[in-house]
Each structure stands twice: as C-alpha cells, then as structure tokens.
C-alpha cells in the first residue's frame, strides 16, 4: 500500500545522494525501520524491488535492519526495551511510557558504494542537474 510511496521516496533520496556525492554505483543500501515507523519491512522490500526497476538503483541490494522500540523508563530511570508497538511499556517494570528513544526510524544509515578509479567522474551524472 503506502510502502510503495515510501519505496519511491527511498529511490528518490538515494538517487539524490548519487548525484550529490558523485557516486558511481550504490551496491548496498542499509536502512533502519523502527517498529513504530508504520512500515512493514517485508512489504517495503517487495515495493523496493518494483520501484527500483529502470532506475539507477536497479542493481542495488537493500538491507533492512528492524529497530525495536526503546523507551526512557521514568520508574527504572534507564533506557529499556518496550514490549510491543501496540503496548509501549517497559519490559522490566511494566510501566507505560511515551519517551520513545528508538523505534520511529525510517532512515538510510549506510551505503556501500563503488567508485571507479579509472573513471572518477560519475557516469550517472546528468549535466543539467548540476
């Protein structure tokens, strides 16, 4: 459903990086998808496979790292894991919390990129974009 919109935004953001950073190719893109992001990793993967066709990311591998919800527990005074997205409470003492530290991510965090030393320019560069 909306994973296709998200996949499209991912393609757009990665394409922009290729241009901005003068990259030859992105071999692997690693993204973090938090439990509270509203996005299902498997659906995003399927959508990415569709959306990347015919783009500069058509051969890029997508690595998805799910992120568990972590909350700042007021009772424990520490950062703890929360039980589930539908029940945001500390796994140790059970107190509900809205101080979400991790779990909302929908971020690109790492790129494995290729630079061709024989051709330092980016063959994907479009002169009209510069």
């Amino acid at each position: 459903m909306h994973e296709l919109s998200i996949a499209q935004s991912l393609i757009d953001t990665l394409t922009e990086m290729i241009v901005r950073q003068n990259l030859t190719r992105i071999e692997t893109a690693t993204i973090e998808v938090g439990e509270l992001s509203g996005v299902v990793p498997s659906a995003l993967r399927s959508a990415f496979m569709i959306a990347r066709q015919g783009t500069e990311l058509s051969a890029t591998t997508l690595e998805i790292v799910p992120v568990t919800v972590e909350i700042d527990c007021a009772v424990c005074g520490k950062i703890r894991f929360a039980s589930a997205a539908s029940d945001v409470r500390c796994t140790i003492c059970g107190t509900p919390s809205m101080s979400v530290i991790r779990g909302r991510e929908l971020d690109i965090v790492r790129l494995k990129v290729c630079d061709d030393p024989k051709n330092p320019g980016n063959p994907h560069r479009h002169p009209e974009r510069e």
Partner: protein
Amino acid sequence: MTPRILEIRTAILKENDLLARTLRARFDQAGVFVVSLVSSPGAGKTAFLQATLKRLMGEFSVAALVGDLATENDAKRLAESGAPVRQITTGTVCHLEASMVSEALVGWDLASLDFLFIENVGNLVCPSSYDLGEHLRLVLLSTTEGEDKPLKYPTIFNTADIAIITKSDLTAAVQFDREAALANIQRVRPGMTTLDSSARSAGGLDDWLAYLRARHSIHVPSAQHALGSSVASLMT
C-alpha cells in the same frame, strides 16, 4: 572498483519532513493554528469538522483543506459552513503529503486566518508516516468502530496528539464499551488526551472546542483575531 562504506543517517522521507517543517514555519509566521484530522473512513471527520467550522465561524477566521481519492463531496459539505474550503483530490494516493498541502494553499493569505483545518484521507495506516506541518493532529475513533481499533492501529494513535471519540450519541445503541476503548488508547499511547464528542448533539462539541481554544491561545498568545477580513481577502 573499490567499494567503500558511507555511514550516514538520512530520513527516507527527508523531502516530506523538510517541506513539512517549512510549512510549519510559514504557519507560525502567519499566526495561523493548523489542525489535521485522521481516522478510518466513515468515522465522522467531515461531520465533526463541519460542525467545528460552524461553531468557530462567528468568532474566528477559519479555512479548511480536505483530501479524498475522488469527488469534491466533502469540500462541498464543509463549505456549507461558510468557510473557505479547498478539496485535494489525490487520485490513487492513500494519504496526504506536505507537498499536496503546500500546493493547495497557493493563493491563500495565511496571515488572514486564525485556524486552518486539514482533513486527511480516511485511512488509519498511511497518514501516520507523513508530517503535514500541522500544530495539532487529531485521531477520531467512532463508537461504531469498536474498542479494539487502537490496538489494531497503534501507529496512527502513537503519532497523533489527541484522540476524539465521535458519534457518542450512539454509545448505547451499539453497546460501545467506552472504558475499554480508553484503556486501549492508553496502552498504545500512554498519557494520550481523549475527549468525547457528538457532532449531531447540542453541546456535543463543547469539550473539543474548549480544548481547541486553549491550545490556540497558548500557540498564538497575543493573537488579534484575523476575523474582520472578509472571505475575499483570503485570496492574495
């Protein structure tokens, strides 16, 4: 070819986030308080918003944007209040994004408004990912939807600021367990403010309007009401 690793952190929805932030800054500068509404289809967003607009019209300068896949029906209904309303027709897109809001506002003088309401496409899933630049996000849950909804759709509740029960006048007829619904809301969004409402009953919006006025006066403390300008001057 030497592969290298780039460690970065960039939001996938960076473009939407940036545009939403720009919109929010514009709204702040113009002194307009922006409220968005999300719910499942049929929860009563339009009726709720229509009644809200009517109640505010005499005292404040208000306008609304409404998103639907197709038809202009909701915009027509909302316009019956007398407020300026624009329809955003998304085609196949199941949610509103900041770019759609930005485009829909072209030609409106935001400084002439006290309130701008944005009614999202009826959908409890996708809108949660997209910041529209609003100051307050309402999630509406009707008594006819059952008490489980918050547990089934945690993210939309988790990303909203206040939950409003709609169609409260039907509570007995559908045997809605209000306490269970409120408990479920607290499970997915501890500490969430909840209000009851009924767009079709006298006084059914009083709690909501009191809350809205309070939020507005905090946000725009020295507000001169923009009312006094006619609807025509909304257009730049």
